[in-house]
C-alpha cells in the first residue's frame, strides 16, 4: 500500500500516479482507477507514452547533456512490491532491467491503453449504494469504493478464487485524492473532523484486500490540507510505503540556488518491511525531483 502525500497543487503527485498506471499497462497488468475528482476515462487518456529501448539512449542524450553518465546511473528507481512475486533488485548500473521509462511530452497510444483490462470508479457516477457489506460506520463514499474493489478482486480471480484461470495477473489500483472533501470526508476541512475514523478504517480494510490478493495500490492524499496531524500519523502506520512530494512552486525554495536544477523534494517517510527483519534502505534519503520536457527524474 503506497501512500503519496500530494504536493500543494497536485501536479507532481498526479504525474507519479499516472506513471504507476502507465507501468501497469506496459507490464500487462489490470488496472482499477478510482477518483472523485477526475473521471478515470480522462486520467487514462493522459498517461505518458513509454520510451522504447532503441530511442531511449537518444532521449537520454538530449536530456542529460549536462549530466555525467555515472551521475545518471545513481538515479533512484522507485521500487514496487508485488504480492507473491520475488522482489526485483535494481542494480544501479543496469537501469534498463527493472521498470520502464516514459516520455512525459507524449501521450500513450489508445491502442496500448486498450490492451489491458481496466475498471473504473468515479464516485459521482456510481449508482445508489446497495451495501452488500458491513459499512462499520464508514463514510459511504469509502464503503462504496471498498465494495467495488472487493467485487473486482473476487470476480476477476485476483484472490485466487477462480481456479479456471491459468494465467494469474496483478491488479494495480490507483486512488486519487483520498480524504478530500469530494469523497464526502471532512478530514481536510477541519482539525476536529466529525468522523475521525472513516479514512483509517478504509485503509485497514483496503490493506486486508491487498494482502489477500495479487494487487498493489497507490493512493494520493492532499496531506497538506489535513490539519489533524494525528490522523496523518495513523495513516502512515497503516501504509507500507509513504512518500511525500514537496514542490517548490510558490515557496521560498524556488529561488534557493541549491535547488535551482530541481522542482521539488521527495520525502521518503516510510519503506516497506515485508517478510523480512530488515528492509531495503538505500544509502541516501535526500532526494529531489525535476520535470524536464520529456523526463521526470528523481535524484
Amino acid at each position, binding site marked *: 500500500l503506497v501512500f503519496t502525500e500530494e504536493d500543494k497543487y497536485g501536479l507532481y503527485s498526479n504525474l507519479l500516479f499516472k506513471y504507476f498506471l502507465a507501468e501497469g499497462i506496459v507490464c500487462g497488468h489490470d488496472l482499477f482507477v478510482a477518483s472523485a475528482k477526475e473521471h478515470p476515462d480522462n486520467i487514462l487518456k493522459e498517461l505518458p507514452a513509454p520510451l522504447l529501448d532503441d530511442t531511449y539512449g537518444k532521449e537520454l542524450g538530449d536530456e542529460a547533456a549536462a549530466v555525467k553518465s555515472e551521475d545518471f546511473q545513481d538515479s533512484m528507481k522507485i521500487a514496487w512490491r508485488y504480492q507473491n512475486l520475488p522482489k526485483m533488485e535494481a542494480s544501479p548500473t543496469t537501469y534498463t532491467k527493472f521498470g520502464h521509462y516514459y516520455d512525459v511530452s507524449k501521450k500513450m497510444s489508445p491502442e496500448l491503453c486498450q490492451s489491458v483490462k481496466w475498471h473504473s470508479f468515479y464516485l459521482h457516477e456510481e449508482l445508489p449504494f446497495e451495501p452488500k457489506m458491513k459499512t462499520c460506520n464508514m463514510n459511504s463514499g469509502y464503503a462504496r469504493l471498498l465494495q467495488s474493489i472487493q467485487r473486482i478482486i473476487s470476480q476477476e480471480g485476483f484472490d485466487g478464487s477462480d481456479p479456471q484461470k491459468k494465467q494469474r495477473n496483478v491488479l494495480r489500483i490507483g486512488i486519487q485524492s483520498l480524504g478530500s472533501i469530494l469523497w464526502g470526508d471532512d478530514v481536510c476541512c477541519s482539525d476536529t473532523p466529525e468522523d475521525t475514523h472513516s479514512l483509517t478504517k478504509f485503509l485497514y480494510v483496503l490493506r486486508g484486500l491487498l494482502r489477500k490478493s495479487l494487487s498493489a495500490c497507490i493512493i494520493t492524499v492532499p496531506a497538506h490540507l489535513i490539519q489533524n496531524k494525528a490522523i496523518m500519523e495513523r495513516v502512515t*502506520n497503516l501504509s507500507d510505503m509513504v512518500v511525500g512530494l514537496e514542490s517548490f512552486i510558490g515557496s521560498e525554495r524556488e529561488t534557493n540556488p541549491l535547488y535551482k536544477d530541481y522542482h521539488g523534494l521527495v520525502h521518503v517517510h516510510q519503506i516497506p518491511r515485508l517478510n523480512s527483519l530488515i528492509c531495503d534502505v538505500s544509502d541516501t534519503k535526500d532526494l529531489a525531483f525535476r520535470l524536464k520536457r520529456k523526463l521526470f527524474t528523481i535524484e
Partner: protein
Amino acid sequence: QGKFTLLRDTRTDGSFLVHHFLSFYLRAGCKVCFVALLQSFSHYNIVAQKLGVSLAAAKERGQLIFLEGLKSCLDLVFGEEEQPGQPSPLQFLSTSDLRALFDFVRVSLAPADGDSWKGPVLLVDDLSVLLSLGAAPVAVLDFIHYCRVSVCCQLKGNVVVLVHSNEDSEDEENELVVNSLCHHSDLILWAEGLATGFCKDVHGQIKIIKRLSLRQAVEQDLVQIYQYKIQDRNVTFFARGLSAAVL
C-alpha cells in the same frame, strides 16, 4: 511469569522485537496467543523460519493461536452474517466494543485438556491500530487491564504488547494509552531511531527499562541503553558508540 512487557518504538520500526518474542516463547514451549493486527500470517511465518521456528507447525499442534486481524476484518466486512453466539473478535470495527476481542484471548489461552505447554503468553502487534479503528483510549486500556488480570494474574502467564509513539506526536489518544501502559509495565523495551538520522551500521538504539519501582520499594528503575543493527536472521546489540563499523 505474570509479567507485562511493553514494546515501544519511536522514529523506527520496532517489529523486530515482536518477531523475537514470538519465536522466543514458542521455542520455550509456551502456549502463545498472537493478536496480529497489521500483517499477514505469512509475513510472520517467513521471518520466524529465519529465526528457526515454524509458525505453521506451532499452529497445527495447538501451541500457537493466531488472530490474523486483516483476514478477520475481511470476513467481518464482506462475509456472511455472523452467528449470534460467535461475534467476530474484530467486532469493534462496528461497535467500538473490545469485549469480543478479549473473549477471544481468554478462550484461546484457557488451559485445555491434554495441554502440556509451559505458561500462556499474549502477544499483541500492535495496540495503536485499535485507536485507528474506532476504539476509545479508555476502552483500549480496559482491554489490556482485563488481559492482564486474566493472563498474568489468573493464568500466571506473560503479556507482551507493541505500541507506536512519535516524538511531538499530536495523537493525544495514542499518547494517553502509551503513557498509561508505561506506568503499569514491568519491563519496557523502547526502540528509537537515531536522532542524527539514518545510519547503515547502527539502525537504532534500544532502552531497556526494568520497572523495579513497581513491585518493590526500590525508587529507581533500572535503565540500560544499547544500540543495535538488524540483519537478515539476527539482531546484534552493542554498547553505544561501539558498533563493529567503528571499532
